[in-house]
């Protein structure tokens, strides 16, 4: 059983109540088609467990096969510094089929971010270490591909369709309360 080795902290991107009984962590890549497919499913799952779940997204860019995954992750961090992480996160996944640097900059400016500042942050790799530290925390926790989900700290080895995620969460909740 693979366990999330890096606990959720304030420096994570967290959506949902801090004291939620369910924590769903995704290691994902904005250019990975499977993560793209999982994106609306995760939103549905959040809706299903509304008020009882928090969702955490950590970067796991497979840059060798996805040339814009790293830049996309860094751009989300740049947006995050302005309090717009989730807006950028959603925009990146929703425009995954045309992901490139121009698209990423456009998505940023649409959110009201400065294109020049964003370009500079990406060029200088301002958020590269942050993204890398997410990536390595995933590797050490047994992330073996994207997307990889952890439910309350335990890797979800099932599929990422709606039914599998919901039942995975319910089973983990049952196991946690009986323990």
């Amino acid at each position, binding site marked *: 059983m*693979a366990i999330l080795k890096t606990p959720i902290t304030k420096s994570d991107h967290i959506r949902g109540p801090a004291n939620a009984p369910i924590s769903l962590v995704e290691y994902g890549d904005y250019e990975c088609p499977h993560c793209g497919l999982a994106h609306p499913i995760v939103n549905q799952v959040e809706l299903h467990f509304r008020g009882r779940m928090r969702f955490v997204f950590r970067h796991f860019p*497979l*840059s*060798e*096969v996805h040339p814009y995954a790293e830049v996309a992750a860094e751009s989300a961090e740049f947006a995050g510094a302005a309090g717009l992480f989730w807006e950028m996160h959603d925009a990146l996944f929703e425009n995954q089929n045309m992901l490139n640097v121009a698209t990423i900059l456009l998505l940023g400016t649409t959110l009201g971010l400065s294109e020049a500042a964003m370009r500079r942050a990406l060029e200088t790799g301002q958020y590269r270490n942050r993204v890398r530290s997410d*990536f*390595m925390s995933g*590797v*050490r*926790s*047994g*992330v*073996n*591909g994207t997307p990889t989900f952890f439910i309350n700290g335990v890797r979800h*080895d099932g599929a990422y369709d709606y039914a599998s995620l919901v039942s995975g969460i319910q089973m983990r909740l049952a196991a946690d309360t009986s323990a």
Partner: protein
Amino acid sequence: MSSILTVGTAAPNFTLRVTPDQDLTLSDLRGRPLILAFYPADWSPVCGDQVTLYNELLPEFRKHDAELLGISVDGVWCHAAFARDRLLHFPLLADFEPKGEVARKYGAYRASEGVCERALFVLDRRGTVAWSYCSPIAVNPGADGILDALEQLSEKANGHGHLENADHQK
């Protein structure tokens, strides 16, 4: 599954094709830690993820001066196409003729299906098995076990004084 070579065993030497016109001999790589990743087949979806992940982690492996070798029973041309498609930056060895001979020596051959097990070995600088793991064939084993083993080797090397240190910093 439990028959793979265990810690402390001297890794059997071998020479395998790595490209259509090049061989690679294990003993030539002595002096640095080695990761041997046996996997069932090029192109199958699980190893796809596995090699992609390892490819991504080459800089981490190199921090420990370690070299990664992938091994399956696929032929050199198949390996070449697979490596090109996935942009792999590490060698894939063809345990092709006699089929699976090297995998058998490591206890990592699955005779019922005629493919390698999904087995990982970390060898120390002297060519001794420092860590080994055989994953269920459908499960991508990830890389945390490899990194733990490499870290232990580096710590050991650093604890051994100047000679090993000098070697490590080479």
